[in-house]
């Protein structure tokens, strides 16, 4: 999952950066509104976490600009403004969710996960593909009922492929969703991550769950 945070509080940036990276989420952070809008326009984020009172360009202007340009990016407003008018204005301008500060990190993360699921048109946090069952809310993976231990990166890769199961996903797409703009991966990072995930799945007797489509990328399919 790749998330953009536009927030000018350095302490929040630091806390959320740590919190999201621990969950394997690729989080890009920017404190200036204008820079944030530029990043949101030019990168395939799953979710945008947007503060409203920002230097450069305020959050509502960013929201309006994105919606006017036809962006279907899932946007969560994270702000200290708590009045009903502010919430209504935010949601009516095109935000998908609205969370008022102060907030619990767990709640923010759960809402971001829910928005990411909505992007892939899934309401049920559980995904079942053949012997594989993923609980995207609890971030738990089982094969034939047996829990398997994955790193955050491996989990993110598997979740992304699962969200797009039956569809060949290009390496660039995977790279875009696993790594932020500030964390540039090695050229074969995706192949290494897929290889690592395959070998873990193989330990549980599952060989062909992730298949390679030559010249295209990878596909997660029960076939």
């Amino acid at each position, binding site marked *: 999952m790749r998330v953009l945070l536009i927030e000018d*509080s350095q*302490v*929040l940036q630091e*806390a959320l950066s740590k919190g999201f990276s621990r969950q394997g989420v690729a989080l890009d952070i920017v404190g200036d509104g204008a820079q944030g809008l530029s990043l949101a326009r030019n990168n395939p984020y799953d979710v945008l976490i947007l503060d409203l009172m920002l230097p450069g360009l*305020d959050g509502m202007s960013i929201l309006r600009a994105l919606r006017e340009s036809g962006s279907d990016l899932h946007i969560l407003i994270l702000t*200290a403004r708590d009045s009903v008018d502010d919430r209504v204005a935010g949601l009516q301008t095109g935000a998908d969710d609205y969370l008022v500060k*102060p*907030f619990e*990190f767990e709640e923010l993360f759960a809402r971001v996960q829910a928005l990411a699921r909505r992007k892939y048109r899934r309401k049920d946090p559980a995904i079942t593909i053949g012997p594989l069952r993923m609980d995207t809310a609890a971030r738990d993976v089982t094969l034939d009922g047996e829990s398997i231990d994955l790193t955050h990166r491996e989990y993110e890769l598997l979740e992304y492929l699962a969200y797009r199961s039956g569809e060949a996903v290009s390496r660039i797409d995977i790279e875009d969703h696993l790594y932020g703009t500030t964390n540039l991966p090695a050229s074969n990072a995706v192949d290494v991550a897929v290889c690592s995930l395959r070998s873990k799945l193989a330990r549980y007797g599952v060989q062909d769950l992730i298949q390679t489509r030559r010249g295209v990328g990878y596909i997660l399919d029960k076939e």
Partner: protein
Amino acid sequence: MRSLRLRITLALALGQLVVLILATVFAQQTGARVLTDQFDASLRDKVAAYESLLEQEGTRVKIDPRAALALAPPLGTPREFVQIWGPGGRRIYRSPELEDRNLPKHKGTVGAISIVDGDFEGAAVRTLGMRAVVAKVEGTFWTERPKTAAVITMVIARERYALDRAKTGLLTGLLVGDLFILLTGLLVAWVLVRRGLLPLDAFGRQVGALDVATLGGRFDPAQHPRELEPVVSGLNDLRARLDDALRREKRLNASLAHEFRTPLSELRAMTSVALQDLQDVEFMGRALERVHEVAGRLTELMVLIRQMVLVEHSDDEVEQEELDLGALVEEVVTSLRAELNARRITLTCEGLDGESVRSNRTALLSICSNLVGNAVHHGPSGSSVLCSVRRDPGGIVLCIRNACPDLSPEQLVHITEPFWRGSAARSNPDRHGLGLAIARGMAGLTGLELSLDISKGSFVAELSFPGQV
């Protein structure tokens, strides 16, 4: 306080009572006079009747006793006493009711009639007395016609209880009528006053129904009587002021809540992420540093808020003393030296040496700290700040000028509002947007005047010391 309706009704009733009393007195007087006149006229008629029975024969005057007796009033009517004296005081006639008593003899001139009230033998009577010449003379000039006309004296006293009763009846009738008119008038006045005051009642209900939610509206003067215009206008002004104060209070409360939300969310986010992995000692240390830093900011914010609230709600008289303005500004500049150097800002003081003003030291130091600090914090790096003093006819003026390219004239209106910050300052956690609000409050508290303006790309703050020249 009594009700307005009751007051007006009572005033109307009082007016009505006065009119009724005057009318009653007039009617009673007129009625009594008419009754008395009628009584007197009947007495005169009776005199004329007796007079017509008198006959003069020679020197003698006589009356037919049977005819005279026939003139006596019938039984059951007020008694009448009649006595007639002839020339020389000789008694000609005395009515039987007098028995052997005499009526007091009339002593007036001939032709004069007197009518008086009095008592006769315990009875209240009205007495007519007269002296007259006998008109009916018996005989002819060649027989026994008298040479001179005889003068008689006649007194008729009639009991006046019927007259008194009629007068009392008249008065009673008038008083009963008055009471009826008074009560009817009261009722009519009550109803009319009630109807007349309906617009006031409606207005009262509207005022009574005012609450926080409806404070923003205004009373429509066209819907209320002209007499209430000053009240409607005054209440509309009051509503506007209350509404404004309430809005400011709401804004301040919202701003306060907002100001605390961000540091609180920083604390919660940082601590909850740190607590997720207690083994991550490096992040734990950094989180503690951040928490400490945020707590420091919150403490500073709390001190500033307290200062601002004290300034806005203080009624205390502040002590004034003679202060060296130059030394005071220098003290402020010294405290800002590190930031001036770091941001390469040049601060120049002109004409401050030797200038003394009368003010409160703590308040003036706070104002200067906020104004000069504001100029230094918000001026662009490498720019300059000028502190100068000039003498206006109204008093000494301390002027602080700094470059401020980002501030627009529209923003100037909000600049002294608590927690207002320009876009650039909003992300700086050390800037709370309270400096100018506190400076303005302190200036008001100490009788100084603070004006803020934008002139040729510069922000100009002028602190005037009225009357100090």
